[in-house]
């Protein structure tokens, strides 16, 4: 099982992880572990985030002021740090999403003809 996970584990660029975190928090505040699980779930297990890399990303977002952190209680009454989106973060999410879509579209355009050629 581990080998399968390693093969399918796609390396994420630094900035992309930030984007995913922001999007996840759009739905409401969450603690670190919940964010990791949400990303895995939403991507239907394609994206197996190396969970450790979550922490530098979270701190980076805090430093930039896009998310904020608060002590809270989790679902099973344990103390945890909850991260939430700030107003700036919300705005930034729109910006970053736009950039990502542009990038993805461009790459898709380059790849598409090759596929067609490959097929035909």
């Amino acid at each position, binding site marked *: 099982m*581990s080998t399968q996970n390693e093969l399918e584990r796609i390396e994420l660029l630094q900035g992309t992880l930030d984007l995913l975190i922001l999007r996840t928090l759009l739905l409401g505040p969450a*603690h*670190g*572990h919940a964010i*990791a*699980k949400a990303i895995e779930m939403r991507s239907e297990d394609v994206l*197996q985030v*190396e*969970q*450790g*890399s979550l*922490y*530098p990303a979270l*701190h*980076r977002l*805090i*430093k930039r*002021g896009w998310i904020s*952190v608060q002590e809270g209680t989790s679902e099973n009454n*344990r103390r*945890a*740090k909850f991260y939430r989106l700030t107003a700036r973060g919300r705005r930034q999410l729109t910006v970053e999403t736009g950039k990502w879509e542009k990038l993805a579209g461009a790459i898709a355009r380059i790849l598409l003809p090759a596929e067609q050629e490959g097929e035909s």
Partner: protein
Amino acid sequence: MNLWSRFFRRQRMMDSLDQDIRDFIERETQDNIARGMAPDEAHYAALHKFGNVTRVKEDTREVWTFGWLEQLWRDIRFGLRALVKSPGFTAVAVLTLGLGIGVNSTIFSVVSTMLLRMPPVHDPDRLMVLFSRKLGATGGSEDANRSPVSPPDFLDWRAQATAYSGIAAATSFENDSKVTLSGGSEPERVPNGEVSANYFDVLGVSPVLGRSFLPGEDQPGRDRVALLRADLWNRRFGSDPHVLGRTVKVNGETYTVVGVMPDTFRQLWMFPEQLWIPLAFTPAQLGPAARSQRSLSVYGRLKPVVTDAQARSELDTIARRIAATNPATNKDWGASVLTVQQYAIQESNAGTALAFLMAAVGFVLLIACANLANLLLARNANRQREFAIRVALGAGRLRVACQLLAECLLLGLLGGGLGLLFAAWGLHLLRGAFDWNEWSILISEQLSLDRNVLLFTIAVSAATALLFGLAPAFQISRRDPNASLKESSRSATVGRERHRLQNLLVAGQLALSLVLLVGAGLFVENFIEEMHARPGMNPHHVLTASVALAGAAYKTPARQAEFFESVLRNLEKSSEVESAAVTNNLPYTFPGRAKFLIEGQAPPPAGDQDWRLTFAGYFAVSPDYFRVTQIPVREGREFSRADDANSAPVVIVNEAFARKFFPNQNPLGHYLRLTPDGSPAEAGTTPPPWREIVGVAGDVDEYVGQANWRPQVFVPFRQQPEGAMSLMVRLRSETTTFAASLRQAVWSVDKDQPVTDLRTMDRVVRDSGQGDDIMAELMGAFAAIALVMAAVGIYGLIAYLVGRRTHEVGVRKALGARRREVLWLVLYGSMRMVLAGVGLGFLVSLAMPRLVLASFHDVHISHSSWILAGTPLAVILVALVACYFPARRASRVEPMAALRFE
């Protein structure tokens, strides 16, 4: 997010990171258990999925770093540790730097005090100093033709100039006036100023007690008010708050005190006036003839919107207008406007001397830097392995270089701190030396480590650190780590290029110190020449003092003469006195002048401004003057008691006068007419009498280091009495204890007359050097420091190089080389560099005599002096000695020990 909040935030975030990560893994474990794993397996899987915890912590921490700032802090801490670990190196380096920076700070504080201080007035940038200026005079720069302003000119300027919100005048401090303050305790002579009523307003100084002058108080009749300075108030009135309204006697007249001015205030921060009275013009001073009596300093405060240039051109126009309507007195006279800063710089002739001193200490600092660079290069050579390993492990070359620079900065700062301590001590010494006249004493009181000096020191420390740190750091970053790691001292050719740099540095040091030595030698030569040349008189065992008669009793010349006669008689009664005299001017002080006319010789053409043709130094002396001073009277006779107010007018001239105006004749028997400067006769009333020349006296300088003899004339003081005279007493033994008796001799004639300025004649001579002795001492000291530093530098370098070649030397000796051959080998190698440095320095030093001659006037040095030839030899000798000891040590090396040396 600013630095502070980031810092605290980081602390908080990092504190809980451990806990957060543990929680995270705990949750994942729980989830795994829920998926059906065993607890151990669940935990392991969670850890595995998380990744490297340590790396995560590091990466997170990196998010919060301040980048370069943290890096710098880390470098500094590391550098500090490295310095502490090699205390010998650190001590030598800090000491060298401290010395180099210290001398620079000392001299800079003198520069700052003399040239950069602003006077303690309100808004000094808008305060202007106004002068009259003689236009189109031959030779001399504009400043040489500046002169004070006459009362009618001042009043016209004030009425017509629109550029100023206020113009005020004060008696020019060039007049150096003092008044006698009496009534109550002992009479005292204090420097004073007579000023316009709005003077303090124009300057922007507020009184600490009472008020300043009211408008109108500078009119005759309302002008019997006075202002004190705080230290006079303190000293004489005990800071009594009820001093307002008390009366004081100034020169016998009664004045009422109305205010006290702050201690820190001085006219242009130079003249130490302690008392001010209003400047009330007499009718004579307002008349048209008075336009040529130029005696006032004038200040104006510019209106906010007016520029310097506008003010200047306006005043030029006004001056031209006045010249057109008053051609007799004001033809060719214009005006000049300066800011106080410009004035201070130009007026202080010390500018050139200070430039030389700054250059000298600059050289010393450069030599210190070279020493430090060599030290660092040597030290880095030993750390070559360490750097190579760090670079191999991934440190960027730039990082390593930066870390070295941080070390250098630390050294620089430590050196700067030590330098400040040295500077404080140096200033203490200097303060004692600045004492040749009132102005220099004033400067010495103000010498301190002020803000300018501190800033300067910090800047110099940082710049120095960068200077000596760059070369080694640059070198480090260039070397291939591979080569360094493989290198060992067995190889014979070790780092050739590095040695070239070090050799260059040492050669440079030698060149600099040679130039400095030659310069210092020139100043010393000058001073020695000055002191020993042509004394003209015997200044030893002579005590002098000044008495300026004050009071209504001494208004007539006859009474003045009587007073001094009585004092002389009292003095002669004492057994310690060999002879006593009075004179209106001491030798070796700039004497007043008299215009003269020789009977039978054509007067100089009218309008000829060359005063040398019409003026001579003027001395009014008592009969024993030549006996006291031991000035020889070569022809004719001296004055005697018989020459008094009722006998024929006579005069004695000096040899310079005779040479110049009676070139091939005997002056005895000819007649002269004299008009002393400032006497009533100058205004053109009764002409002075024709005086017969009865004697020719030897020449005496008017100041130490005078280049040419100047013409002087002597008259018996009974025929031309004056109120302010100097006493000269030749004592049979040492002079120090006679002061009290001298005062007593004066006070037994009149107890209200203050006796001032008690000095031995030796001291008078020395003071007239105006600090030449200090200049020579300072330059000499700096040159010596430079040479010692250079010698230490050479010694260090040679010792180091020899150390590196120990293995090679061992091999040579094992192969049969003898001691002397090894000695010679080392010496030869080092002498090449020494000769190169000395050669370069010699070439540069050839220009020094010309430079010094051009920069100062009245300098006694010769072009092709032994200094130029001898100094290089001396430096080579010192270098040889410095090289010899390490070379000898090398030659004594035991081959076996050397071969085993790694």
